């Protein structure tokens, strides 16, 4: 089963998910080609030349920054030429902009947020979750000889070592870009750097109201913890951007991560699942956060917070 992996990069740097995709591709068996679509793809060749990669396809495009039409046209041309059985992309913001379009246009099998893959009777079986990550599903692609899969970051260990893949230059197709990169804007740095804290007390939508936030600010101070949160509290303007843990926020790895009222959505877990010790309090015994927590308590977070106040 031949696999085409599309390398991801931002501002000249390869994103780690690329090497994880190589590992995922190896699970399917067969030759693995990695496409590098970039302003100067040769600068990224060495980084993707890892164990399990047979060929590196370089496509030089304008501009270097991701643009949907440009990348989609390049990948489409590679699919037509190489006829891979599977195309693996990261479940990332860039891929969300063109992966589903490839499937719709070319009539391919499709699934996203895939975290396990195998071959069965010549076809691909993918695993993903539904309903707030509370149930998993095996997904199949009947009638499709080719699939596009968006793979959940950090589900596979990155491939390393190796080297010596064949490098082939491929010409970029001419395309009119209808959504053009103009600039980068970085998130403003906050008053604290949550990525260096040893102990994070992290609150989620379970705290209910803005008025309740003060209680947890005080609790964090008593416990000697730094306060962080899930995204909805930042969206609502209750917490500053710099305190958000997760895919679109900060990746943290404290010694202790104490999560109160956080469900454990995949984008939240992406930012904290490698923490030293994860302790989760949630009133829902089926909350997905318990799948990554080392210690869990099914309880009302306010009751537990009140008791913690007495102890610290």
């Amino acid at each position: 089963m031949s696999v085409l992996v599309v390398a991801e990069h931002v501002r000249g740097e390869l994103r780690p998910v690329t090497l994880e995709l190589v590992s995922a591709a190896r699970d399917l068996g067969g030759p693995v080609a990695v496409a590098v679509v970039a302003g100067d793809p040769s600068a990224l060749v060495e980084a993707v030349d890892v164990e399990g990669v047979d060929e590196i396809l370089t496509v030089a495009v304008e501009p270097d920054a991701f643009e949907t039409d440009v990348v989609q046209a390049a990948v489409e041309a590679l699919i037509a030429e190489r006829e891979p059985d599977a195309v693996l992309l990261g479940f990332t913001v860039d891929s969300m902009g063109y992966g589903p379009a490839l499937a719709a246009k070319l009539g391919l099998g499709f699934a996203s947020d895939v975290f396990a893959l195998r071959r069965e009777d010549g076809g691909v079986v993918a695993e993903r979750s539904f309903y707030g990550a509370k149930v998993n599903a095996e997904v199949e692609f009947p009638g499709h000889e080719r699939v596009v899969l968006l793979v959940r970051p950090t589900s596979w260990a990155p491939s390393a070592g190796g080297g010596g893949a064949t490098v082939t230059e491929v010409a970029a197709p001419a395309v009119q870009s209808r959504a053009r990169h103009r600039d980068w804007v970085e998130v403003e740095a906050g008053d604290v750097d949550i990525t260096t804290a040893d102990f994070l007390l992290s609150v989620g939508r379970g705290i209910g109201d803005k008025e309740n936030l003060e209680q947890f600010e005080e609790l964090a101070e008593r416990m000697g913890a730094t306060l962080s949160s899930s995204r909805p509290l930042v969206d609502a303007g209750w917490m500053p951007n710099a305190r958000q843990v997760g895919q679109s926020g900060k990746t943290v790895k404290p010694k202790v991560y104490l999560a109160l009222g956080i469900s454990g959505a995949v984008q939240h877990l992406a930012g904290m699942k490698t923490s030293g010790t994860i302790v989760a309090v949630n009133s829902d015994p089926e909350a997905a956060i318990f799948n990554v927590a080392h210690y869990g308590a099914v309880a009302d977070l306010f009751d537990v917070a009140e008791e913690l106040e007495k102890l610290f």
Partner: protein
Amino acid sequence: MKIVVCVKQVASLGDEVEFTSDERDVDPDFLDYALNEWDSYATEEALRLRESSGDGEVVVATVGDEDAEEAMRRALAMGADRGIRVWGDGLAGADPITVARALAEVVRDESPDLVLAGVQSSDAVQAATGTALAELLGLPRVAVVTKIELGDGTATVHRELEGGLLDVVEVDVPCVLTIQTGINEPRYATLRAIKQAEQKPIEEREPGDLGAPAARVRRMFVPPRGEGAEMLDGEPAAIAQRIKEIVEERLR
């Protein structure tokens, strides 16, 4: 300015689950329904764009059975003008590419100036329908948008990347944008607006040719717990005591 917003009625599970007899989905008796969180932000954004342009129309489109009208009524109560509901064979539990095909025909018929969808639906987390729809409509698109400024024939938008980095993108209009939470503060529908929404028209449509499904669920199951968490039992006081011990030990 005419804007179509794709809205989905999403399902969530409580703390109990049973599956249908073919094991391909959860038994509906165990599901609760609501308007997708991302779609309420998309609806709000459409309403604001309509308001600042002075006139126009916001049309909400959904693929779903009759019960799914409840979620669409929420969007109508926020201020959308009318709804279109698409339903027919092959759409129950459909993959996002199939849903996009069902939406494409009705959206094309509306010839909107702008199409908005949510980044993702909370129950399926495909983050795919809006982008697939754009392709089928032949429109440019930007996924994961946190700011929109309309210009002349183009829009300048913020595309939110991992780590919070923003990509400022200039996109030709008409286009499809998938809207991220936090872009605005969705308004609450007043009781009066909810009542009025009952009177707003919802057109029913059947899908055209849906083609072959892009995927099929073979089996759903409760994930194995793995090593899982060590559960702290007892009263809140006992739980708090254990948390204190764990924290003190790990931070030593």
